[in-house]
């Protein structure tokens, strides 16, 4: 009995798979699970960084030690922008799942803009932290936390831009590209959702404990 090389015996066919689809969406697709795996990795990354922040915070007599808490304006504007971006994001997911090429392209273009805007605001956010990374442990951990989220933000926006370009070429007519758009939008959900605890920790936690 060998399924490796020809053995001459007639195969015992139990099932025929030739009618199965060659792409699918959400948890039926392989890439969705791969994306989820990386989201799990990054969630533990965020979790541990926040835990380190809290570890420093519970040690000190006052928190933040020697600097005022970050200014609220840029971070809050960015939070609102990210939350608003969820609307085109959900729509794009729906359009992709319906395999509507023109609407999906429109959605992607909107998402590119909705992704670049927060990156611009993010520059001002770093300036509003009111502490340098080399001032003290507090400065180090807030820069790291904001830097970690920025990495995710920039990576996904670059990914969205490349995917948008791809969807405007002949390759964009494939059903599996719509599944890619769906997965990319799912990852953006993560970029937005992971920001909320970071926003709370960076901006509101120091105000609540002081």
């Amino acid at each position, binding site marked *: 009995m060998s399924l490796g090389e020809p053995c001459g015996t007639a195969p015992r066919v139990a099932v025929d798979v030739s009618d*199965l689809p060659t792409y699918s969406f959400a948890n039926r697709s392989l890439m969705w699970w791969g994306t989820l795996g990386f989201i799990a990795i990054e969630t533990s990354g965020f979790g541990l960084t926040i835990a380190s922040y809290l570890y420093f915070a519970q040690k000190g007599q006052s928190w933040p030690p020697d600097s005022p808490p970050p200014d609220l304006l840029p971070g809050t504007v960015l939070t609102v922008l990210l939350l608003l971006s969820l609307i085109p994001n959900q729509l794009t997911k729906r359009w992709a799942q319906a395999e509507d090429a023109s609407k999906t392209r429109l959605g992607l273009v909107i998402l590119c803009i909705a992704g670049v805007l927060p990156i611009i605001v993010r520059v001002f956010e770093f300036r509003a932290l009111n502490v340098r990374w080399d001032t003290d442990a507090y400065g180090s951990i807030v820069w790291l936390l904001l830097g970690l989220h920025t990495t995710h933000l920039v990576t996904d926006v670059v990914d969205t831009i490349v995917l948008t370009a791809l969807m405007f070429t002949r390759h964009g007519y*494939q059903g599996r590209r719509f599944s890619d758009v769906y997965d990319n939008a799912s990852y953006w959900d993560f970029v937005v959702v992971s920001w909320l605890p970071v926003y709370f920790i960076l901006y509101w936690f120091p105000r609540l404990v002081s």
Partner: protein
Amino acid sequence: MTAMDHADYPRDTNLDDTELSRRLTRLWASPKGLIGFLSTTDHKVVGRRYIVTAFVFLVLAGLNAVVMRLQLAQPDNDLVGPKLYNELFTVHGTTMMFLFAVPVMEAVAVYLVPLMVGTRNIAFPRLNAFSYWLYVAGGAMLWIAFLVGAAPDKGWFSYAPLSETQYSPGKGVDIWAQMITFTEVSALAVSVEIICTVFKQRAPGMSLDRIPIFVWAMLATSFMVLFALPAIMLASTGLILDRLVNTHFFDTLGGDALLWQHLFWFFGHPEVYLVFLPATGMVSAIIAPFARRPIFGYLAIVLSIIGNAILSFGLWVHHMFATGLPELGASFFTASSMVIGITSGIQIFCWIATLWGGRPVFKTPLLFVLGFIVIFVIGGLSGLMIASVPLDTQVHDTYFIVAHFHYVLIGGGVFPLLGAIYYWFPKITGRMMSEPIGRWHFWLAFIGMNLAFFPMHLLGLWGMPRRVYTYPADMGWGTTNLIVTIGAAIFALSFLVFFWNVLVSFRSGRLASANPWGAGTLEWATSSPPPPYNFLRQPFVTSREPLWTERGVLPVAEGLRVDRRELILSSVVDGDPIQIETSPEPSIWPFLAAIATTVFFIGSIFTPWAVVWGTPPIAVTLIGWFWPKGSKEEVD
């Protein structure tokens, strides 16, 4: 897709075996030439390279150990000085843990998991190739640094603040920290591949309760990697930032050195289980065929594996008992350290029951399994001893600890691994390993290992601290250390015998049939070595040991195209076929992306600006990687 299209594509349906084999070979074979060598996406080729590379690192780190043992063989020895000795134990531990123990387990999984679940390739095979090149680059960086005299010398856990710039000028620690980044990125990628392969690419009919135990073990291990490795990446990033741009995470100017220990051991304890869990999976895989019966207590073993995976995250503080933690915290971690003895114990009893109820055939793979049980139980018992705070405080940083973790890691990792090599060597190479040389290997390894490490318990109890490059004669440790060195020499000799066996068997060993041990799982359903396409027809699974249940011809699924690389996706729980997935064809881009990433990582040891100029090349190679090239695999 219309009915017309469906009929148009050439499929395996109604193709005779010879024609099917010819077409699939042309389709799945790795490309030739240097570019082809660098481009392959075959999990078996990458897995083989991974395994060989990991053993190269084992030899290198083993040579570190040989030099250390020669130095300690007699009191007041001056073979090596303190600085070189520090480098030796640092590079030894770092290589063994980060470049051998964990990677070799993942390497075996990269080779075997797709075969065991009955699919044609691993999920995300290009990511797999990428992860291998990163691993090689990280390991090469550490060893080149060692050879040119720029090695790290702060121990495999690089405790802060000793590892901060103030006390460790030079680039050694930075190289250590970036080596972590290389290997962890690589391990994380492999874990995602394994999770996706196991969840989505199982052969039709392989429901969750029909997964081979080794595959369960690798699944649990991969999940642990997802949650444990980010801790060490965070820690090493913080350390390198402290050293490069003057942040204050772990230094004495406002940082916190204990945070380093928390982060390191939050990773470091699960790390031990990243070695141990796959090893238990190997043991279960080996015991069943050699006991000539299905494994006893399948469900209990699977639940113990998952239990161990979860519990291992609640143990890290027992590495920090000597740091003066609150008593309640220490008690909690003592209790959890004892609890994990229960889940580990369940597995051991299941193995014993399997052997008891079977008709054991004592071939070399089983000898290593039995050796594992003996050594690991000793290591487990000394583990229970040091789970208790007063005893741990007494023997902390002595040779007792060195004895304990070598018993656990060699017993719980290396012995099952060696058994696994003997067991799966015929599958990988198509030839059997020599049984007589195998027995010599086993007994030399078993005697050498115990002679080398058991006396260390005594040295530790007598107060000999670890990491000292020499000791005065009047301490009275000389004779025992000489015995340890003799044991180490025998243990090293056993590896020479092993490599001799591998070499001789690879060239002229007896040819192996598809299933030389009469085992029941799917990797034995294909020829030895497997063809590039793994299975001529896709297996359809009806039980846990398909090869034992189906006496005649295995049932198969058909309907896959033969003009492009296709495999079947199945549902997560029941393993029902739900989709046809294309498997990416070979590509040079993962290799180029690995080079760009290497430049980025090494550059950032020297300047923070590497983050700026190092990113665009990575982005370019990733876009090149993912941008469609017009192959058949990229369309619906």
